[in-house]
């Protein structure tokens, strides 16, 4: 059994997670990857998704990230995300609102002002948050 690896999730608003854990799973932009202790130094961008790691009691903990990047070192994983929330901190009301807003914007995409890519990204984020809350993973 490999030793512990430190996981740090940092956002511009402050640190979200700082724990020692056995394994970290993260959504890399070219595919999901897992990191154990002793990983080769590795740098990648992240897409919208969840970081999963094993909590103290062996339970699986989830952190939502809205993209960013991650650096893995042999004894440490640092995730820099523009926004990140633990499952329990997700604001359902806000996510629902964001989803509605994005849907409305996408529906009106004929209008020249609509930024299709951004609206789509906003919708993805909102849907991912809600989905994570419902399924717990």
């Amino acid at each position, binding site marked *: 059994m490999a030793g512990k690896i430190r996981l740090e999730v940092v956002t*511009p608003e*402050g640190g979200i997670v700082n724990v020692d854990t056995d394994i970290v799973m993260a959504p890399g932009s070219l595919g999901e990857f897992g990191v154990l202790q002793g990983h080769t130094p*590795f*740098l990648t961008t992240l897409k919208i998704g969840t970081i999963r790691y094993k909590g103290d009691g062996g339970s699986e903990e989830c952190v939502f990230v809205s993209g960013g*990047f991650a650096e893995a070192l042999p004894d440490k994983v*640092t995730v*820099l995300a*523009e926004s990140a929330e633990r499952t329990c901190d997700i604001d359902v009301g806000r996510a629902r609102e964001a989803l509605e807003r994005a849907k409305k914007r996408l529906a009106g995409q004929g209008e020249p002002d609509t930024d299709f890519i951004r609206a789509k990204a906003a919708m993805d984020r909102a849907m991912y948050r809600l989905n994570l809350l419902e399924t717990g993973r």
Partner: protein
Amino acid sequence: MATLKDVQTKIGAVKKTKQITKAMNMVAASKLRGAQANMDGFRPYAAKFNEVLGSLAEKAGEDASPLLRPREEVKKVHVVLCTSDRGLCGGFNASLILRAQLFLKEKLDQGIEVSFTNFGKKGRDWCRKTNAPIINQHLGIVGGVFGFNVASTSGRNLIDGFLDETYDEVYIINSEFVSMAKQFPVLKKIIPVPPIEHEETETPDETKPFLAEHLCEPSPDELLGDLLPRNIYVQLYSALLETSTSEHAARMTAMDNATKACDDMVENLTLAYNKARQAAITAELMDIVGGAEALKG
């Protein structure tokens, strides 16, 4: 010679002013704490970000992103001017605006067009007065509570403007928070991204070979291309945080001085009041004594 009543009214007025300045001082102090907490929260992110960016920049080619490439001919520049929304904070806005003014003049003399994005009302008002073109304005952000998305939204606009050649260079003017008593305006070029120098590492060099051996996914060039826009948001966000913190610190100092000035004034006025009162009493006594003497006759 002011009458007693006048001096009394004046003392009352100054005392009321003092109440206000004192309250503003305390409000600024509590907001300052919040702003400083935000800055502290952001620091680890910024530090890590710069570290990664520095090590990537060493690996990636210079053509990794159009944001790195300076334009040969610079005809139009864009300035992001961060000021506060509200006054009563000493020379804070004046010094920022002065910096902008010098820059504007310098560029105009070279025949370069300058446009502005304003954070804060004071800077916007100045732009309006000088008829400088305002492309974007964001009020109610500096000095308040704002998230990273403010910086990324506005940063994206700046990048779009640069890429579609609306402007050839982007600068930012903001206040740098050094200490409670010291904040000064700084001007920085943010696009094109100046060559990233690897920070003079204070940490021993042992960590460096590690960084150099990073596996990258996707390629270093693509990674850098992805990180550079974020770098601009990071800089913008940090500029906004610094400006907010500086604003509160400046207001706190200004209001502290105002409160002290009020104290001095009350003291002087009280002295004047007492003198006037004394003079009145003396005059009255003289009258009475004079009257008594006359009666004795």
